[in-house]
């Protein structure tokens, strides 16, 4: 009578045991994944050889820009049939980051090659999930193949974690028709921007000169990047510095506060139906964003053709020529779990995809405004003067100018998703309601600091 549930008992015991065994396996050697990988020695000759050898290699790749890339990937497979790419579309970038993190934690189903934004890969670099393939040889041979700011952007500390794919320099899209209506000019400096915006909002309180997107920290932090007022710095893979309260940063904060108070800027989410309608109605007169946005505006609002003008974003200080810009874009990285014998073939493929003549052409066919990081592309495309019908001007030349003025003295914190969480929790409310921005930023820094320390980083202030 003491054991009437023996069947159950056995099942639970068996299940429990297997769970415990599984999880011991999961945690037993996890310390090895704790630190940034020290690198794998891959020779250039191995990489070149990988293309000509006849060893079959299967590589798995996850990339959010699936649609843009698939033509180039197909072209590669046709040219080098022994290298097969299992190309998976993992959904949006944020979903892919979650899935990659999960795969790494589970040590199962980890892809070989991943496409990341320049701002989103560092967290995987410092945790040792991405391969550091830096070597003198590779630096020497490949650095010149890419624009300098993108080559810098694939490094964290001393490590090299990927090959640049595209570059997305920021530009300012202005509704010149509305400005003209009010007798105003497109501003060239941030002071002009403020003055113009103040006049505009006084003349028509329903209109704002611009907006700050509050869905993530990018738009907000771009102001500081443009102003050469870094909010943080990544010293190496285990050490960061925080400087959101430096004198320069506080100057930018005060300026933003002034713009918010006087109806020049408004904090708003740019991913809503309401926002899209507001743009159609001209509520926000300027839109400062990465250059792919031009293509989206063109697609979404065909009826606004001829009303927008593309210029460089405003400059800090009095001299428009001294303007510094920012840039996004994406790169291809290798998972640290890739077997040594596959790594050379993977790098050969990545190199081909990002810099070869054929691939560049395929990219441009699949998407007219894909702005590649390869110097070959940049030199060739810069020569071509094309008039963009929607904007009635040569928008590309503005993008190139912006790309050349990117403030490269900027690093991305190695925990982007958590940073964005703190941003929306603490700073976004101050941007969109009547909060005090400086107070918010003062509350923000200790949170970031606490998180970083708990994750094992050394934090300088």
């Amino acid at each position, binding site marked *: 009578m003491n054991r009437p549930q023996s069947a159950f008992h056995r099942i639970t015991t068996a299940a429990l045991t297997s769970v415990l065994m599984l999880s011991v396996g999961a945690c037993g050697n996890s310390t090895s994944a704790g630190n940034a990988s020290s690198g794998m020695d891959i020779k250039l000759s191995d990489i070149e050889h990988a293309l000509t050898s006849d060893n079959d290699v299967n590589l798995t790749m996850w990339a959010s820009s699936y*649609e*843009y890339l698939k033509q180039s990937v197909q072209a590669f497979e046709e040219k080098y049939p022994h290298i097969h790419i299992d190309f998976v579309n993992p959904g949006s970038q944020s979903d892919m980051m979650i899935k990659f993190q999960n795969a790494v934690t589970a040590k199962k189903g980890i892809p070989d090659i991943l496409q990341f934004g320049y701002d989103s890969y560092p967290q995987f670099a410092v945790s040792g999930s991405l391969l550091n393939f830096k070597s003198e040889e590779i630096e020497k041979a490949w650095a010149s193949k890419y624009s300098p700011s993108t080559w810098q952007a694939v490094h964290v500390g001393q490590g090299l974690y990927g090959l640049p794919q595209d570059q997305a320099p920021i530009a300012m899209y202005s509704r010149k028709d509305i400005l003209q209506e009010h007798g105003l000019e497109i501003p060239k400096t941030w002071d002009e921007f403020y003055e113009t915006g103040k006049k505009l909002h006084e003349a028509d309180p329903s209109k704002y000169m611009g907006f700050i997107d509050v869905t993530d920290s990018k738009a907000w932090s771009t102001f500081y990047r443009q102003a050469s007022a870094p909010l943080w710095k990544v010293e190496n893979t285990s050490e960061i510095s925080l400087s959101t309260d430096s004198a320069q940063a506080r100057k930018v904060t005060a300026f933003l506060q002034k713009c918010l108070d006087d109806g020049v800027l408004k904090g708003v989410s740019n991913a809503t139906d309401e926002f899209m309608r507001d743009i159609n109605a001209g509520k926000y007169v300027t839109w400062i964003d990465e250059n792919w946005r031009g293509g989206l505006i063109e697609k*979404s609002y065909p009826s606004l053709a001829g009303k927008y003008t593309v210029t460089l974003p405003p400059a800090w200080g009095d001299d428009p020529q001294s303007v510094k810009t920012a840039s996004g874009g994406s790169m291809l990285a290798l998972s640290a779990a890739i077997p040594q014998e596959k790594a050379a073939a993977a790098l050969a493929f990545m190199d081909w995809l990002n810099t070869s003549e054929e691939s560049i052409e395929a990219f441009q066919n699949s998407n007219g405004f894909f702005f590649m990081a390869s110097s070959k592309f940049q030199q060739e495309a810069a020569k071509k003067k094309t008039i963009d019908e929607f904007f009635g001007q040569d928008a590309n030349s503005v993008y190139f100018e912006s790309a050349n003025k990117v403030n490269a003295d900027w690093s991305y914190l190695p925990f982007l998703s958590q940073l964005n969480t703190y941003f929306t929790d603490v700073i976004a409310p101050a941007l969109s309601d009547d909060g005090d921005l400086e107070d918010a930023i003062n509350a923000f820094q200790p949170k970031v600091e606490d998180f970083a320390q708990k994750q094992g980083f050394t934090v300088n202030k």
Partner: protein
Amino acid sequence: MRNSKHASLLELTIGQKIMSIILHLVMLMMVLYCIVPLVWLVMSTTKTNEGLYSSPGLWFADDNVFLQNIVNTFSFQNGIYGRWLWNTLMYAVVAGLGSTLFATFAGYAIATMDFIGRKWLLATTLAFMSIPSSVITVPLYLLYSQIGLVGTPLAVIIPQLSNAFGLYLMIIYAQTSIPIPLIEAARLDGANSWTIFWRIAFPLLSPGFVTVLLFSLVGVWNNYFLPLIMLSDTKDYPLTVGLNVWLKMTSDSAQLSVPNNLILTGSFIAVIPLIIAFVFLQKFWQSGLSAGSVKM
């Protein structure tokens, strides 16, 4: 006497008429509350992307592109939407049907038989019925990745095969609708247990079966959290996750932007099959609910 009675009758009818008008008005408002958002959705499916921003929400835009939108939704990104619809159907049918069958077997056994572990099973089911499934989604992921299920449709299907609430409903339903003497008699006639279940019990249980089936279909059809975490390839996504990917893509630089009218048309198509299922199976599930509610 007569007069006054007549008058009161007349008054009553007037009162009833007013009452009836009020009743219908209140009902009309409730119905409007429920269908206005759906009307907006239907209207949106007839518009171009730009028409969405330049026309009133509850009325048509200048040109009606409903058919074009349907075609575009199914052909966008090489017809990925069709894949999602198919996946959703597959997950819903396998997990919905499976969980309902399992619950029916177990519910029948618990209601009509005494066996070792019966009490134990009953108690655990009742205790865990109130645990929100989302609480265990994260550990579920880690566990399933250890046994190599993550990234496969099984990772979405297996957890949804377990339906403690469905089992609870089936126990109640079996208790109220299966006369034990009938089963005893069949057993005395020499019928084996499996035959008794399918020949006698199952027909009696069918309204309850359809009710539990429909509600688990809705659960699987509308599930978002589990497939979001478990699946890594967009080709395996169900509609809820797929549509949200489209939604995110409109503001994601790395992606093709998806026109909003396609997202809305896709949402509209996603809602249709369930509505059809509910309308056509009305008779079954309503009698199932009524019988179930005797005990509830």
